[in-house]
């Protein structure tokens, strides 16, 4: 279990699936990370979970983000390259009450520390839709910088939008961390 100032990151338990499925119904929040949102039954999510449990060396490593004893979002590695020591991750806060209040960036900071200090990744990166200014600001506050902008790569609520790639090197993060009070 990883502890931040406001959140804890922990494994996704079977008991969490119902709550996660409920959060998934907040389509307007899910769309930021999943612009092609589709309905999925709780049973389908449970089936996916069972499958993932049986994978010994899963590429994905998932956490739930918990605050005040409630699951409010997720964060995790979606792709990793162990030869090059890089990982791509994703994060989302799906409980409206906890949006824009620093919970996401607290989760990202804790996650970065784990990925660099314990898992020995050398580089972390992510992609984010250009209109998602709140997320971009949070990632910037954690030290990520824009590395590429794929023009009109995605479609968000019916409009073509740019997709932004952001990255952070471990050497930069140590600098960011040292600069924090």
């Amino acid at each position: 279990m990883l502890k931040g100032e406001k959140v804890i990151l922990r494994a996704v338990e079977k008991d969490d699936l119902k709550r996660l499925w409920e959060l998934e119904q907040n389509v307007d929040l899910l769309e930021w990370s999943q612009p092609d949102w589709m309905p999925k039954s709780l049973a389908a999510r449970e089936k996916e979970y069972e499958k993932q449990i049986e994978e010994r060396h899963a590429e994905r490593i998932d956490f739930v983000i918990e605050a005040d004893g409630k699951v409010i979002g997720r964060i995790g590695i979606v792709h990793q390259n162990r030869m090059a020591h890089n990982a791509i991750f994703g994060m989302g806060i799906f409980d409206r009450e906890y949006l824009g209040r620093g919970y996401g960036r607290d989760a990202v900071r804790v996650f970065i520390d784990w990925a660099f200090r314990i898992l020995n990744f050398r580089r972390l990166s992510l992609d984010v839709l250009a209109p998602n200014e709140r997320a971009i600001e949070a990632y910037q506050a954690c030290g990520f910088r824009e590395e590429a902008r794929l023009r009109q790569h995605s479609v968000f609520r019916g409009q073509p939008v740019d997709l932004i790639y952001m990255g952070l090197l471990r050497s930069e993060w140590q600098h960011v961390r040292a600069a924090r009070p």
Partner: protein
Amino acid sequence: MLQGEKTSLRAWEQTDLPRWHELSRSVYLMQMGGGDWYPEPLARLEYWFKKSLEKGADDEFAIMADGKLIGGVGLHHSDRRSGTTSFGIGIYDEAYVGRGYGSDALRVFLTWVFETQNWRRLWLTTWSTNQRAYRAYQKLGFVEEGRCPEEVYCDGAYVDEVIMGLLREEWQARRSRGVSHVKG
């Protein structure tokens, strides 16, 4: 069940898994074992437990104290032809760390390894940063046999792996001198 002065050692049961899951949340203590830490759901521990039943592995103990699960110890890399095996031990309840519970469990475990199971040589590896474990192993008679420089990435730095070993005859000699007595 094997009985020590402070601890007892018994087989793992399915009912231990929720407690084990709770203990495995301690990033700091879990790192001492593998150098890393991943979020593991209870469902995965249950899956592995079922798998281990199919394999029929029976050289893993749960370490109990005050009626609670506090850690585990078990054999790895067992080679019956040469009579050598290695082990790993961990105390994962913060309240029981550094208070002799691990050493107590190991004294019982060593008797089981050398006498009941008739192993001739027992070895282990630990990280150079884990001084507490190193001293505990030394007190039990293990001697340093080698160091692999910067073998593992642990807590932000590359640290050495230390190999330690103990032969049955060394253990018997110490025991007959009363250095390491065992009850039960």
